[in-house]
């Protein structure tokens, strides 16, 4: 018999183990590939969408009316290179963008990568304009005329203006943040799967120790044995990884539509197909993980390393990791801190549980309680790897839940702040907003005076009193300061910031600006608003997600006459009848046939739906990891228990009724699982903190609020209960099967204490 056959024959006798190992590799590959594929696709498409619209200009009519085909013809006749961009919503598919490939030619810039719409028009999302026009319904589609960079430099023809082209408010950073967090979670998932793989592998090794020893005695040397094991694992890995990667891709393709739409809705970005096509990266990653998981310290398969290394060392490591996470000036340091903390926590948790349990055992007088506690200690030690994997998975699920919920709440809140009013009316270019404002102010019976305001956006520059260089900022001007904004969540504030703002005694800044300029409430700022130079204190800092730019919030009364407004609107909360009256009156005042009125409630509902869908995916991913960890744990428990069944049966031999013995075992398994849960909670809370309070500010300049959701802990506890009861069930089954006495007192480590 060749050594190779001798090795492989192990799995012939334990086909279930082989199947479990194979299934785990397959699932892990699928999971990882799926995540990788989705995130890289989302990232590519976010990047592309950014490039598609980056620094483009569009041509609009001076009179504020939307551009039409006639305008296109006019501009072309004047020798301008304009390209029509027709956005058409397609139910269930997002949107199509019709462009004119001929016009796109003059947009080519030598030395630049072509914009995504300069490629093939395959409906993802670009199509020929004729095709888009065929699907366009009048009210929902929008025509934009893009001006080439060269033409954008020279003054616009009479009757037209150039303005920056943006499909939506800039939320790219929110998207990036989301993806970065997904990446971090993907790495953790990889870590957990490698732990699981290692535990199953070590289990097989422990069971094969005798045949390995035999081979060794027959003259097969150690390096040969290691090589054989490596070959065996690589073979297994290859056989399982490829279908796993395939499965992961298939899965991500199924999810991609929903995910794409979710991202599109979430960040209001066009999503592009393509990208993330590589299959080799996940494959290589998985191979590396498997080799690392199975080879690292093959000789240490007994877990003796656990006792050899001083716990104090890991306590120091933990403290170091926590300290680094507080101090970390860059993302790399932060990731290092996370690695340290996870390493230390993973190492310390089983030791800590065993330590506490042993201490309790020493301090109880009841031999039965002592027995239970000691059994817990044995299980913790023998099943350390899968238990730690479970601990990580629980922590991960907890953190992801908190992150997702926080994200959701925050975004919802932020959206709520921005869309506080029921309706939102765009003020056309050139329209007289003062007339509208005085009319509204004179009609308190129609719209309550506290429930409307005008918003004027533009640019300004800001200088701190200490005299640093002026920096350009966005201006968000409000007038009057209605109740609609007074529910904004403020990060820092003076006593009555809104009243002070209304009186024109100061201004507010967004978090980005505050962080960048190290501004605190009370600091004085010099703001240059058009011709006016204004010095005012900071009254409050408000969160402002998804944009890199700094922003100041000022009362509209402080704006000078010559302030160049880029965008004006009215936010109004009123009944549907009242808003119709307002709409009609404003249309009359402004001499426009049609006003753009948005129903904010509908927008919010849509955004919320989209969020739910996006996070369904994240939750599904982490829950799958948890299921994987739980399944692996149960498998290990099953194998380990079969070596310990004899001792459980002793309880029956000593006259304990089946039911009572089963209760004892249930208590053992529940104590075990809840100890793991208790270790997972602080880790999860810490990871949450890292994700929302450290990664985001470091990467993007703004933080998410930190929140823990104890309600979810109860859900996790229920989950732990289910896992614990499943283990207890496995133990019970062992009680029923006639056990054979271990061959030697320590047959297969069953007699361990």
């Amino acid at each position, binding site marked *: 018999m060749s050594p190779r056959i001798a090795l492989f024959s192990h799995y012939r006798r334990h086909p279930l183990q082989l199947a479990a190992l194979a299934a785990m590799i397959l699932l892990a590959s699928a999971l990882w590939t799926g995540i990788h594929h989705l995130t890289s696709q989302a990232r590519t498409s976010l990047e592309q969408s950014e490039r598609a619209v980056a620094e483009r200009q569009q041509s609009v009519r001076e009179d504020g009316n939307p551009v039409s085909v006639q305008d296109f013809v006019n501009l072309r006749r004047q020798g301008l290179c304009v390209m029509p961009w027709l956005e058409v919503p397609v139910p269930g598919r997002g949107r199509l963008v019709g462009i004119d490939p001929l016009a796109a030619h003059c947009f080519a810039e030598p030395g630049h990568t072509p914009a995504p719409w300069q490629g093939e028009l395959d409906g993802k999302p670009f199509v020929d304009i004729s095709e888009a026009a065929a699907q366009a319904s009048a009210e929902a589609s929008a025509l934009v005329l893009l001006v080439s960079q060269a033409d954008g430099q020279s003054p616009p023809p009479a009757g037209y203006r150039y303005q920056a082209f943006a499909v939506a408010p800039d939320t790219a950073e929110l998207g990036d943040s989301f993806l970065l967090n997904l990446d971090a979670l993907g790495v953790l998932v990889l870590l957990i799967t490698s732990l699981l793989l290692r535990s199953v592998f070590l289990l097989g090794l422990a069971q094969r120790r005798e045949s390995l020893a035999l081979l060794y005695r027959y003259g097969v040397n150690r390096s040969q044995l290691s090589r054989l094991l490596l070959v065996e694992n690589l073979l297994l890995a290859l056989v399982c990884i490829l279908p796993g990667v395939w499965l992961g891709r298939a899965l991500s393709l199924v999810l991609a539509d929903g995910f794409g739409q979710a991202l599109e809705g979430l960040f209001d970005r066009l999503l592009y197909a393509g990208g993330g096509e590589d299959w080799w990266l996940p494959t290589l990653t998985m191979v590396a993980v498997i080799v690392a998981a199975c080879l690292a310290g093959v000789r240490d398969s007994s877990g003796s390393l656990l006792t050899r290394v001083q716990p104090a060392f890991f306590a120091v490591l933990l403290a170091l990791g926590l300290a680094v996470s507080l101090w970390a000036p860059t993302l790399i340091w932060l990731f290092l801190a996370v690695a340290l903390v996870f390493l230390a926590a993973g190492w310390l948790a089983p030791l800590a549980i065993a330590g506490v349990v042993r201490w309790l055992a020493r301090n109880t007088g*009841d*031999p*039965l309680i*002592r*027995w239970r506690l*000691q*059994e817990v*200690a*044995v299980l913790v030690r023998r099943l350390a790897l899968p238990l730690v994997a479970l601990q990580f998975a629980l922590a991960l699920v907890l953190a992801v839940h908190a992150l997702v919920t926080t994200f959701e709440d925050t975004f919802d809140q932020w959206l709520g702040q921005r869309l506080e009013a029921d309706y939102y009316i765009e003020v056309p270019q050139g329209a007289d907003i003062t007339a509208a404002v005085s009319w509204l102010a004179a009609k308190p019976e129609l719209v309550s005076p506290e429930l409307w305001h005008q918003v004027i956006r533009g640019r300004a520059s800001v200088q701190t009193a200490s005299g640093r260089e002026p920096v350009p900022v966005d201006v968000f001007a409000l007038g009057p300061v209605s109740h609609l904004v007074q529910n904004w969540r403020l990060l820092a504030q003076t006593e009555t910031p809104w009243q002070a703002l209304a009186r024109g005694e100061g201004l507010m800044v967004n978090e980005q600006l505050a962080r960048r300029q190290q501004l605190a409430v009370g600091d004085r700022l010099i703001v240059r608003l058009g011709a006016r130079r204004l010095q005012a204190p900071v009254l409050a800092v408000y969160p402002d997600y998804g944009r890199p730019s700094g922003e100041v919030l000022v009362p509209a009364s402080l704006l000078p006459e010559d302030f160049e407004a880029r965008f004006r609107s009215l936010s109004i909360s009123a009944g549907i009848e009242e808003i119709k009256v307002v709409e009609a009156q404003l249309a009359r005042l402004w001499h426009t046939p049609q006003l753009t009125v948005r129903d904010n409630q509908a927008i919010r509902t849509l955004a919320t739906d989209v969020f739910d869908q996006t996070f369904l995916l994240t939750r599904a991913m982490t829950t799958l990891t948890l299921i994987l960890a739980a399944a692996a744990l149960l498998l290990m428990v099953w194998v380990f228990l079969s070596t310990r069944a*004899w*001792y459980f*049966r*002793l*309880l*029956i*031999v*000593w*006259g*304990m*009724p*089946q039911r009572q013995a089963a209760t004892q075992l249930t208590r053992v398994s529940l104590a075990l699982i809840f100890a793991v849960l208790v270790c997972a909670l602080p880790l999860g809370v810490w990871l949450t903190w890292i994700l929302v309070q450290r990664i985001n500010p470091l990467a993007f300049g703004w933080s998410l609020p930190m929140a823990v959701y104890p309600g979810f802990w109860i859900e996790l506890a229920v989950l732990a209960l289910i896992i614990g009861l499943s283990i207890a069930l496995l133990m019970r089954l062992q009680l029923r099967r*006639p056990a054979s*006495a*271990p061959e*030697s*007192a*320590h047959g297969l480590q069953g*007699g*361990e*204490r």
Partner: protein
Amino acid sequence: MADNLISVTGLSKQFESGDQHVTVLRELSVHLGRGESLALTGPSGSGKSTLLNVLCGLESPGSGRLAMLGQPLAGDGAPTGKALERTWCELRQSRLGVVFQDANLMPTLSLLDNIRLRARLAGRDDTSAGDWLQRLGIGELGQRYPDQVSGGQRQRAALAMVFVTRPALILADEPTGSLDRRTAETVADELFELQARHGCGLVLATHDADLAARCLHQLDLGHQGGP
């Protein structure tokens, strides 16, 4: 009958492995009075352990009649279902002492705690646990764990564990099987000595002819068992 610790008539036991029936015990009759000892002998696979397992209720008898310590447990008048399990549990708790070849002790408890646990489960006072270790000559080893003492010391602890429950009948399956000759002899001496002193019955499965000869009765399962 009431005087009989064991009363077995026409007992047969079959095992089903796959679609095969293996008859291990066939039409067996065994009777054992108070204070008597019986040696079960026979080649490996002849059913010694199976019979002991039937006698302590860990294995169900296939057919035939079985009464232990005067209580009918199989055949006419025997309880069934829950009541049967309860009867067996009560018997094993404090009336039957079972000793295996090895692994009689919980590996996670010290010798003393093992004996205390056993006493507790039998509803006996566990303060005598130390005395029993003392009596078996391993008093100073009470705080050690089973893997920290020799095989002989472990078996002595197992005996202590049996006697602390003050059983009426001891069922021992090759209790000295894993010990060297001299240790086996001393452990066997102690077993017989305690059995005689406490007047309990003993059923002993063994391959050792000398040990079997020390019992009052001998039953060679090799002559009746087998397929």
